[in-house]
């Protein structure tokens, strides 16, 4: 009896709470009655599945990178422009499929994936006051590049230039490049001389900042090209920007003239090398940091007399430097190269038509080179100033003196009259100041003034040069 009363009381409270809850639910149900829809369970599950799928797709779209507007515009405008073929952008399967298809078409376009035609073109006008001459000139230098495999390639350059009344054709280089390792390559054929850094790097018309080329690193001083085999490559030095650049070659050696018209003149373009007529050489360049490099090049050969009468040692050397620094709203570039030529022969012996014996001398030692400083604006507010480049270059050549002796026969006698003369060493100095205006990154208008001084009565000359050059 004592326990029945609390139980009854708890039951009443439970019933009361249940009634209140039921009333509240009833009231709420009444309030929500108009928005409640009753659906079959199967349909409810289908709706849930669709909702889940929609949520998944929405999340995928939200996480995909946004498509650049420009790309979309291009896509709409042109389907053949290779510049719009990047698969980046919209992550939609349709866009990816289109990109794959377009890339496949681009790779299959003839002449674009294996072969490239490039080069340079130049035109110039020159006026010199010493000989009162002036005239126009032009040249065209197409370069052919073939990609054979990732390790093999072929490259060749032909220079077409006007000379007198003809068009002169020069095969500048024609070589096979074989990549042996990540650092070294083997080059076969006719290649630009690695020891002559100006020819190899700065000679192309649109790269050379002045309308003409420096003195002292061409004919008689250094070779421009070699026919043979070359091993070249680079070795990183283990710190940022440090690198050793190495090349070594064996090639046909030069020949020298035995003609009395041009005694001892060195011809580096000797394509008929004899058995003992081999040149060996190379260059070592030290890139101290990304914007400064010094180098030393050498070639030793036994130059062959062009009449086949013998061989004589010829040593050619070159030191060079290249550097640049960004300062004063522009880039300052310094180039320098100096060449030494030492031929262990200083005369030839020939016979004139009257039977006279001539010992014709020529300079055994020649040296020469240049230093060039240029400035081009980069960050001036005016675009015009950023297109201007100012160049100053100093050139110099020297040659040792030599003697010439003539043994003329005396008529009605077996004796000779000997006369001799000595030609002193010569020295030529030239200063050039030039201004360039860059129409585009690779098209330039050039203007330059030169003053040349030649020793021992050679006189002075002032020259004005104007030209243009473009890389193709």
């Amino acid at each position, binding site marked *: 009896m004592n326990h029945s009363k609390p139980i009854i009381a708890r039951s009443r409270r439970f019933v009361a709470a249940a009634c209140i809850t039921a009333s509240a639910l009833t009231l709420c149900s009444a309030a929500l009655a108009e928005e409640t829809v009753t659906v079959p369970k199967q349909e409810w599950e289908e709706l849930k599945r669709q909702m889940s799928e929609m949520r998944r797709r929405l999340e995928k779209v939200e996480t995909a990178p946004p498509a650049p507007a420009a790309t979309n515009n291009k896509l709409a405008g042109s389907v053949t422009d290779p510049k719009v073929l990047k698969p980046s952008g919209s992550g939609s399967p349709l866009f990816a499929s289109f990109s794959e298809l377009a890339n496949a078409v*681009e790779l299959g376009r003839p002449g674009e994936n294996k072969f490239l035609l490039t080069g340079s073109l130049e035109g110039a006008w020159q006026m010199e006051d010493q000989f009162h001459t002036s005239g126009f000139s032009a040249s065209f230098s197409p370069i052919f590049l073939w990609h054979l495999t990732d390790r093999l390639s072929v490259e060749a350059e032909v220079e077409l230039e006007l000379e007198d009344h003809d068009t002169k054709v020069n095969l500048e280089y024609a070589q096979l*490049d074989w990549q042996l390792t*990540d650092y070294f390559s083997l080059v076969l054929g006719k290649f630009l001389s690695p020891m002559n850094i100006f020819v190899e790097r700065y000679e192309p018309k649109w790269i050379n900042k002045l309308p003409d080329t420096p003195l002292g690193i061409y004919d008689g001083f250094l070779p421009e090209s070699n026919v043979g085999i070359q091993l*070249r490559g680079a070795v990183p030095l283990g710190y940022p920007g440090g690198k050793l650049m190495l090349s070594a070659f064996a090639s046909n050696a030069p020949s020298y003239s035995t003609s009395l018209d041009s005694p001892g003149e060195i011809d580096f373009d000797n394509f008929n090398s004899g058995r003992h007529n081999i040149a060996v050489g190379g260059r070592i360049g030290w890139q101290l*940091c990304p914007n400064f490099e010094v180098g030393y090049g050498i070639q030793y050969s036994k130059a062959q007399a062009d009449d086949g009468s013998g061989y004589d040692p010829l040593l050619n050397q070159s030191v060079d*430097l290249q550097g640049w620094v960004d300062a004063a709203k522009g880039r300052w570039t310094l180039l320098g190269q100096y060449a030494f030529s030492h031929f262990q022969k200083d005369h030839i012996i020939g016979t004139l038509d009257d039977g006279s014996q001539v010992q014709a001398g020529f300079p055994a030692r020649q040296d020469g080179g240049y230093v060039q400083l240029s400035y081009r604006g980069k960050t001036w507010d005016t675009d015009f100033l950023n297109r201007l480049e100012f160049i100053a270059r100093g050139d110099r050549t020297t040659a040792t003196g030599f003697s010439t002796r003539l043994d003329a026969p005396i008529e009605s006698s077996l004796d000779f009259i000997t006369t001799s003369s000595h030609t002193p060493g010569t020295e030529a100095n030239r200063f050039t100041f030039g201004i360039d205006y860059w129409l585009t990154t690779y098209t330039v208008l050039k203007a330059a003034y030169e003053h040349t001084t030649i020793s021992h009565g050679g006189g002075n000359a002032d020259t004005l040069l104007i030209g243009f050059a473009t890389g193709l």
Partner: protein
Amino acid sequence: MKRFFIILCAVALLGALLAPHLLAQPKHPAAKTAKAPDSKQVVQDSDSDGIDAARLWAVTCSRCHNARPAKTYSDAQWTVIMQHMRTRAYLTVPEARAITAFLQDGN
């Protein structure tokens, strides 16, 4: 000739003295964020070989000539040209590969 030698030696010495200073400098901010001209975006600051392709492109090409805009050539043409330049400019294969990828991505 002696004067030329003196000038060359002086400049070389100056360069040698400046080299450590230049090397100690942080990367040029412009080069660090360099873009291939006309590119829409910086595509690759460093590749799998740890090479800063943008900086490498900026300093390597302009060493001898004005660097050409990426859009000058197609991707396939850049492959051919960089194979040529790898030999000519004494580039290692990883360097050439990084510059090629940089130009192609900026194309």
